[in-house]
């Protein structure tokens, strides 16, 4: 009888203890922040890419995509990696969500700024949108697939 009660207590302790959890304390966590003016940036869609042709002195890669809603997005990040599943690093930041008037798309030209380094080769790019909250930016989901880009020599 005592052994059975002991086992029961053990099972109860284990069940109760496993029910404990960590508090969601990150203010950018969509599951933690329930305020009405909190939005998660949408995923970036319809990304098109063009590169400078072979023999160009300064190589650039131009990306264009459909802008997100202004409610959810303040800007975009452009990432680049050397392989599909490699580590990606931010190579450019778009500080606006205002589309170009001629085509109504957001444009990002990697290689247009003096600190950009675009060498011939194969790269993978991905894009995400962000929204500013105080001094931090909440970044949305990446493009559904990493974009393969070949920069010709």
């Amino acid at each position, binding site marked *: 009888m005592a052994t059975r009660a*002991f086992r029961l207590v*053990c099972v109860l*302790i*284990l069940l109760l*203890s*496993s029910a*404990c*959890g*960590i508090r*969601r*304390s*990150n203010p*950018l*966590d*969509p*599951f933690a922040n329930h305020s009405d003016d909190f939005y*998660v*940036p949408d995923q970036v869609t319809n990304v098109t890419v063009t590169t400078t042709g072979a023999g160009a002195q300064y190589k650039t890669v131009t990306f264009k995509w459909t802008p997100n809603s202004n409610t959810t997005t303040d800007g975009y990040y452009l990432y680049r990696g050397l392989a599909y599943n490699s580590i990606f690093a931010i190579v450019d930041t778009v500080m606006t969500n205002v589309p170009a008037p001629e085509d109504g798309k957001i444009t990002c030209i990697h290689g247009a700024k003096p600190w950009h380094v675009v060498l011939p080769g194969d790269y993978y790019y991905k894009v*995400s949108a*962000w929204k500013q909250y105080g001094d*931090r*930016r*909440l*970044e*949305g*989901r*990446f493009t559904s697939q990493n974009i393969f880009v070949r920069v010709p020599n």
Partner: protein
Amino acid sequence: MKRFIITLLTLLILGSIWAQTGFDIAAFSDTTKYGWADYNGRMEYRNDFLERQKLLQLYEMDAQTVRSNMIKSAIVPGWGQFSAKQPVKGEIFLGAEIVTVGTALLYYDRAMTFFRKYETATQVDEIEDNYKKAQGSYQYSIIFAGLGFVVWAYNLYDVVTATGEYNSQVWKNIMKKYYKSPVQLTPDGVEVRF
């Protein structure tokens, strides 16, 4: 006044005579009720009793209290079992406690690492991924801590029986030694039996 004293004395004498007739002197003086057939039997019993008292003193010198062993086991699981000469059990409890508490700490550390990453993360997938990892590790750490508690509690429960077993073994050993050896070590000194 004289009459009163005479009546009182008469009552006292009659009372004592009545008490003597009512008291079963034969039953009172029957030594066989204690298992003594005669004077020798009584002496034998007495000697045996005194010897047992000496053995009890020896037993009390070697016996352990449940309280002290419980305190030992509460501080370090298995310590009480080691004291009660059950080293295998002691090793099992100590090992189980080290493994469970160690694993719990490991998972807790892992959970806190992911939690710090979660707190600084700004990308939704990263936030969710780190939170899930932190939460998973935290739950494992709690489960192992619970297991550690169960092991600790069972170790306390076990030390009671282990101490009882040890004490009964001490008594058995004392009895065995006493009845086997002609030379006895008693609290009063060395005693040689012929």
